[in-house]
């Protein structure tokens, strides 16, 4: 046992850990055994050059240690090795499960990423289509979704014209809030032609006095006027009649009539028009050419 300082002896353990004396002893022994002698400039590098050939030649190629190491590393017999069958079976099982031609490594990772991207895109499309069908998208997005889905034959509600008014599900082609009304029936008569009709009647009638007023007023009011019928209330009561002989509903004021009819055509005509009458006119309406 070489001499060791007390501080090193106290810290010396019995395990295989390396201490400072191991390194010093090994460096010294390695340099001493080398044919060229130690290298004072690089002692660590000298003992660190331990390759396999140097291990097998320790301390010389003909030593017993070298022969033992050479025997331990002797090449095995060529041919099947113990456990080869089980290993091949495990190899076949592993690659039959994953598939011999299945992509692996980067290709497999890319395939998984592609599948994930396709799945995410599909979910986004399905969600957008569902929201579009429910009319829950903003107006701009709803309009785009309507056009896009209409190209593939799917009808979804369009954007609402009034902010905050949700579209009704199932309404494929919603009608705008202000839609042009069909021009049929008595509403087809424009105020200009109606006025001309009343004017012509006033100038061409042969009636005079109360009778003329009753004819003109009845034509102008589409038969609602009861002018000239005083004392004849029980003759032919109109639906608006309250049953009282003296009950007379005055003709609506022009400005109130004008505001009651929201049709844009009224704005172009400063003349008041009579209110809409659900009943067909009593007086036949002359044609424009007549």
């Amino acid at each position: 046992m070489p001499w060791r300082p007390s501080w090193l002896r106290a810290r010396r353990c019995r395990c295989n850990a390396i201490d400072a004396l191991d390194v010093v002893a090994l460096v010294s022994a390695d340099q001493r055994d080398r044919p060229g002698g130690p290298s004072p400039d690089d002692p660590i590098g000298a003992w660190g050059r331990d390759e396999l050939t140097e291990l097998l030649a320790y301390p010389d190629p003909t030593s017993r240690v070298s022969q033992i190491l050479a025997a331990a590393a002797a090449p095995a017999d060529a041919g099947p090795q113990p456990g080869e069958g089980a290993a091949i079976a495990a190899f076949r099982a592993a690659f039959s499960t994953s598939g011999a031609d299945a992509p692996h490594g980067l290709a497999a990772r890319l395939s998984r990423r592609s599948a994930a991207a396709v799945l995410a895109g599909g979910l986004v499309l399905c969600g957008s289509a569902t929201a579009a069908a429910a009319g829950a998208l903003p107006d701009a997005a709803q309009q785009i979704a309507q056009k896009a889905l209409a190209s593939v034959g799917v009808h979804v509600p369009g954007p609402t014209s009034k902010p905050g008014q949700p579209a009704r599900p199932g309404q494929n082609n919603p009608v705008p809030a202000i839609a042009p009304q069909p021009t049929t029936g008595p509403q087809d008569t424009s105020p200009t032609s109606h006025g001309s009709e009343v004017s012509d009647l006033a100038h061409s009638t042969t009636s005079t006095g109360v009778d003329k007023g009753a004819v003109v007023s009845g034509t102008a009011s589409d038969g609602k006027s009861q002018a000239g019928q005083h004392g004849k209330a029980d003759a032919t009561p109109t639906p608006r009649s309250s049953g009282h002989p003296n009950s007379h509903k005055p003709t609506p004021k022009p400005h109130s009539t004008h505001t009651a009819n929201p049709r844009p055509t009224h704005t172009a005509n400063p003349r008041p028009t009579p209110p809409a009458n659900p009943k067909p006119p009593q007086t036949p309406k002359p044609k424009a050419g007549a």
Partner: protein
Amino acid sequence: MPAAEQFDLDAVVLAACAGDETAFVVLFREVQPGLLRYLRTLNSADAEDLAAETWIHVVRGLTRFSGDARGFRSWVFTIAYTRVVDGWRASGRRPETASGAMPDRASELDVPRAAEETISTESALALLRELPEAQAQVLLLRVVAGLDVAMTAAVLGRTHNHVRVLAHRGLRALAAVVAARETLPL
């Protein structure tokens, strides 16, 4: 030099990772002898089972492996070393080591005494088994498995210098073991 090293083992490793069974057989026959010797020296009772477990792990991770033949050999022995340590932990014991002292009794194996006599592989492994576990690990990985210092250090989780020191200490211990046996009377 093994016969398999006469051709490009790196290409063989790539082919085996791609699922080529023939390439896998070549790799198996290249690595299995050293693996069995390594395991028999460290755990003679369960060496075959440990080797089988090692190859199962290798096959499972073969598609994820990327490297050359040297890296593949280091990877296989890393798995084997882990299997050995797990076996020690499961059994609650570690292999008997000389703990720095040279063995004072003769081995049951017939170690050749004449320098000219051929030494069998099993006899050499039996002598390596007499060494402390860390030194035997380093010598086995360096000589039997054919790993360099860096790979041996990676397998054992030690530094390069630690591996070199353990190798030298193992060689000195092995020389002492052989000297002690040769001095014994016949």
